């Protein structure tokens, strides 16, 4: 069942006062998230994946297109989508104690010491933490409190924006385990935004690969990782140092993400693509199905 859906969404950010120059952060994207699955959105920094995450959460209104929650479009916030942010230092109000932070997410009826303690228990913190201010917590503990706040709101969907990137290596595993655990217990739907393919391989069911504001490949994680169809996906896979399936062909890395103000004509990846043809300059490849649940936007076939 599709729980959240983006239908052809666009988001441009103007950067001069006349609004002539715009960063085309999200440039016509459609995707869906199924109930209780983990959808990963991957791409380099500047690919627009964070903006897409914010659009899905409702924090950013798309210029064009719709976000559908259980099939109907919504305006404003409904509390069913919560978010866990990348930077633990910024995600908790420094003048609030843990109790206040977590109970803020609860409605007045449920707000009580017991229910806050219960939620803290779920994220692996003992009740004594309710007195603490954010500056008294370590990075991992802050992230646990942030997760506690998200689940205290009784969401259905949690958007995880690089949830462990800012944490120390030995803490990352704790948080990832916690997230898997919570999903198992509560059946949350996750949207994981991450640049690390190891983590995506580890916890996601489906993956969307973004490049310069567009989706270039989408499908079941196993299928995309083991049989990547887009040269950009192949490039990302070969660059990773994590132990994930290595692609059969090697695409050497070259160049950097193009400017999103003046993206290249045709296929946006062509400037870095070793297989680019004349056609790629002229016409933009559209997503097509290579198998039932695996789509790619490329003229080449691997």
């Amino acid at each position, binding site marked *: 069942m599709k729980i959240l859906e983006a239908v052809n969404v666009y988001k441009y950010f103007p950067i001069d006062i006349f609004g002539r120059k715009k960063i085309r952060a999200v440039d016509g994207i459609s995707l869906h998230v199924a109930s209780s699955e983990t959808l990963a959105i991957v791409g380099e920094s500047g690919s627009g994946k964070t903006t897409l995450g914010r659009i899905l*959460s*409702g*924090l950013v209104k798309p210029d064009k297109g719709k976000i559908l929650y259980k099939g109907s479009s919504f305006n*404003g*916030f*409904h*509390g069913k*989508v*919560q*978010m866990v*942010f990348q*930077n633990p230092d*910024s*995600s*908790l*109000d*420094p*003048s609030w*104690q843990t*109790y206040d*932070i977590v109970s*803020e*997410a609860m409605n007045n009826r449920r707000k009580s*010491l*017991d229910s806050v*303690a219960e939620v803290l228990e779920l994220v692996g913190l003992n*009740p*004594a933490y*309710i*007195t*603490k*201010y954010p*500056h008294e917590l370590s990075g991992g503990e802050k992230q646990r409190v*942030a997760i506690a*706040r*998200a689940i205290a*709101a009784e969401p259905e969907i949690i958007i995880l924006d690089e949830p462990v990137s800012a944490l120390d290596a030995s803490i990352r595993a704790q948080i990832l385990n916690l997230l898997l655990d919570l999903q198992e217990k509560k059946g949350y739907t996750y949207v994981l935004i991450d640049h690390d393919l190891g983590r995506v391989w580890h916890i996601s069911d489906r993956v969307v690969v973004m490049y310069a504001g567009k989706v270039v490949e989408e499908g079941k994680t196993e299928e995309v990782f083991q049989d990547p169809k887009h040269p950009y996906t192949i490039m990302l896979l070969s660059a990773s140092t994590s132990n994930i399936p290595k692609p059969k062909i090697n695409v050497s890395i070259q160049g950097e993400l193009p400017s999103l103000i003046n993206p290249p004509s045709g296929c946006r990846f062509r400037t870095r693509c070793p297989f680019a043809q004349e056609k790629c300059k002229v016409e933009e490849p559209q997503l097509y199905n290579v198998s039932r649940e695996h789509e790619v936007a490329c003229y080449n076939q691997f």
Partner: protein
Amino acid sequence: MIRKETLLKEMNEHRKTIRVATWKAFKRNKISLLSLIVILSVSALSTVGIVYSPYNPYQPNFSGALMPPSLAHPLGTDWLGRDILSRLIAGGKYTLGLAFVAILIGATIGTFLGLASGYYLGLVGTIIQRVSEIFLILPTLIIAALFAAVLGTGLLSTLLAIAIPTIPVYAKLVHSAALRVRNEDYVEAARLLKKSGPYIMFNHILPNILHVVIVQTTYYMGTGILTVSALGFLGLGVPSPTPEWGTMVGDAKDYIFSYPFVVFIPGILIAVVVVAFNILGDGLREALDPKLRRLL
């Protein structure tokens, strides 16, 4: 099972620790502590001055004019034989009182405008900021003089002349501080929890920029006193014979060649109080700096 009562108590206890630590950090700086004492005692004297002063501050006594400091008149007498100490005590309510009330009014209005324009970035915010910029083009003293010119000299016009130019200063300051906080993820998280704009403004943004406002207000008290006395000195503020300190200096300035103490005593008192406010501001800035919390 949770020890509910103890936890709740601990939470409140713990809330106090930040206040206690801030006070300790402040106390460590002896000079700012001294400044606080200076400010409190001068304010206390000025409050007393509303009902009592050793001599009548207005009553001339020509036989005892321009007497140097003595036991009877610790700070001497002026050209009309009025006791300078009594005049200073009675004048505090004008110089300090006017600055205090005016800055408080200006700061409160300015803070709310800045907060609103920092959170609601739309048209309202832009208008508030543009109007503030227009005010900020002109130096405070010149705007104050302009108000004095239009409204005439007197208590109320001096009050307005100080309070109104203060509004845009705070609107601008709070606006930029609020903008920084607004982009923090915890504000986004609150929006995802369906919280309203005013709720976020008062519960998440204001508490985190309050230290900026407090420190600025301490500094601005000094600026306010300087403006009140400068207007008084120029004859555009509280008119003589009211013993507003700046007016006292202005009225006495011709005696600088023969009886300099008549000029310098009120002048130096102004300087001492303003210095104290500025040092207090420095001390508060250090003690209230949220970065310090990490070190506690």
